[in-house]
């Protein structure tokens, strides 16, 4: 213990070089664990966002894109599908339920999702959790809107607050459906999924705010149909963006998927969420590898820094080594003393890096949700992450062995007679 205490006091005596080395070790651990935590958290967050949906159906394009815009409100749809097609598959004998999704508008940067009662009834996340209301009820009337928990919290909206929807999904949209304001009738409980960051209206509501629009252009002021004259029963839904489908029997999934993909009335595409997510992770794995390589490089640089700091201090510490020899410390204990220094730096650096990462995940969680829609759960390090830390400590042992061995050899040569 006294040797470890001496090693720590020696490091404290060289505070600046120790601090710089500690920082570089902490940075490498921050990056190594950070990449893993974000990777694991992202996958978990995505996987938890949707359950019990067998197939997602939309216009033909990319499977990953279809999944991203339908479930995670990321990116745009390339095309819509007709409501007749939706009804065809909704009433298919293999279908248990469907959830229609119509996208394209937003409010204060949050996506507006037009759907129907099936969403409130059938949507599941984290295995079998249904969406629940914190206040109010489901959207039913044309201009009813239900808020995700975070939308209500961030915008400080309550039941009854009027909401004007913007055309398009940009947070800075200049085209607003100001003549047809919605009224908040419900606020959902937090789910930790993209549901929290969206507003939910009826399919009829989405059609209503685009009545009189021609080729993406709104009617001239005063020429549009007033909101008061729009009745739900008179609205015919023409198209939606995509829909989620649950089959009656899991065996039917592949057959139904083939039927959807071969549908002749219009080009459709379907994907199984788990399959699309796997493809997404495969696509992102290149970025993961790149990030891991960067982390490994930072770790390598920090170890080289450690080597440099210990090695350059050896000459000025020859007298110190001689004193320890005079006090009866054998060369093996000197080796241990110097190794204790390098290993202490790495262990303390690793603790600092891990602490900083967990603090960053905890403090930066809301920012990640706001900016990327990512809910990164904070987990204790996995066995892989402990493995990386173990490798780092082991590497520091071998790195520390180089100056320690040099000191050992010098102490044998110097004995008590060093003159500096």
């Amino acid at each position: 213990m006294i040797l470890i205490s001496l090693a720590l006091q020696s490091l404290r005596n060289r505070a600046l070089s120790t601090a710089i080395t500690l920082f570089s070790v902490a940075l490498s651990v921050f990056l190594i664990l950070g990449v893993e935590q974000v990777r694991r958290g992202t996958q978990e967050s995505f996987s938890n966002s949707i359950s019990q949906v067998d197939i997602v159906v939309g216009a033909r394009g990319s499977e990953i894109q279809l999944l991203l815009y339908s479930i995670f409100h990321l990116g745009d749809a390339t095309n819509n599908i007709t409501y007749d097609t939706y009804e065809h598959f909704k009433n298919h004998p293999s279908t248990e339920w469907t959830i229609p999704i119509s996208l394209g508008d937003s409010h204060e940067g949050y996506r507006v999702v037009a759907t129907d009662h099936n969403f409130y009834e059938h949507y599941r996340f984290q295995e079998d959790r249904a969406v629940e209301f914190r206040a109010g009820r489901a959207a039913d009337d044309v201009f009813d809107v239900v808020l995700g928990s975070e939308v209500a919290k961030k915008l400080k909206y309550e039941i009854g607050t009027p909401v004007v929807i913007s055309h398009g999904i940009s947070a800075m949209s200049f085209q607003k459906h100001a003549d047809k304001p919605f009224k908040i009738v419900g606020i959902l409980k937090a789910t930790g999924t993209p549901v929290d960051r969206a507003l939910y209206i009826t399919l009829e509501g989405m059609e209503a705010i685009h009545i009189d629009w021609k080729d993406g252009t709104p009617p001239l002021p005063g020429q549009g149909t007033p909101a008061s004259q729009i009745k739900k029963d008179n609205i015919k839904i023409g198209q939606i963006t995509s829909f989620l489908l649950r089959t009656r029997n899991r065996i039917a999934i592949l057959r139904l998927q083939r039927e959807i993909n071969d549908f002749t009335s219009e080009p459709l595409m379907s994907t199984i969420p788990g399959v699309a997510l796997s493809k997404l992770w495969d696509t992102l794995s290149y970025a993961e590898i790149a990030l891991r390589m960067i982390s490994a490089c930072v770790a390598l640089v920090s170890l080289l820094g450690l080597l440099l700091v210990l090695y350059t201090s050896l000459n000025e510490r020859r007298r110190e080594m001689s004193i320890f020899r005079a006090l009866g410390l054998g060369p093996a204990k000197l080796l241990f003393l110097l190794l204790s220094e390098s290993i202490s730096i790495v262990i303390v650096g690793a603790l600092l890096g891990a602490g900083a990462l967990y603090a960053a995940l905890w403090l930066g969680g809301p920012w990640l949700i706001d900016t990327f829609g990512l809910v990164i759960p904070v987990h204790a390090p996995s066995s892989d992450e402990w493995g990386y830390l173990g490798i780092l400590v082991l590497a520091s042992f071998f790195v520390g062995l180089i100056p320690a061995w040099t000191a050992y050899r010098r102490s044998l040569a110097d004995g008590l007679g060093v003159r500096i």
Partner: protein
Amino acid sequence: MINNEIIRISDLRFSYDKSSKIMAPILAIDTLVVKTGERVFLQGDSGSGKTTLLGLLTGVLSTSSGNLSVLGTDFTKASNSERDFVRGTRMGYIFQMFNLIPYLSVEQNIALPCLLHPERRKRLGDRLLSDEVQRLAVALGIEVLLGQRVGTLSVGQQQRVAAARALIGRPELIIADEPTSALDHGHRERFIQLLMEECATEKISLLFVSHDPTLAKHFDRTVTMTSINRSEV
């Protein structure tokens, strides 16, 4: 220990280049004996083999040629760790200068031998280590410096701290390698006097090495390197 001899050397030959049998040894001592409680002044010029002899006496250097017994241990047969143990637990060593560990306080520097070797601490008996540090500091006039960093001390103060560190744990032998060469006349006399007093009080044998013959008057006897080293190198 035979006849209260704390050091016994006979027919000692030492060369750094062990592979060369034809090369003359740099140290060739027929006999040298230091008795328990004796205070011996070992005088020799630079290059006379003083440092090599001290390396052998402390067990930092090893030889298998001749006989070398220190504190009753045959250093020609003892392992490295056995010699380290004898040095750490039963000896005190004072360097010429730069004697202290720079990142420890004066108090920690003095206590270090007992902290590194529990056996040395046991030699204090019932006395607390902190009490012994305090006692030595008072005896050497450095009690006000105990909490200070060693970098703030003068050379004279540093040498007294080094003496306290060598004395702690009642070693049987202190070896001092030119400890006064960096001190002016007044400090040198005072330092030797303090060292002598403590060695006498604690019945510690002293081997004091210096090139300065004027210091010889303080010691029981003087041994010159030229008289004991028959090496022709």
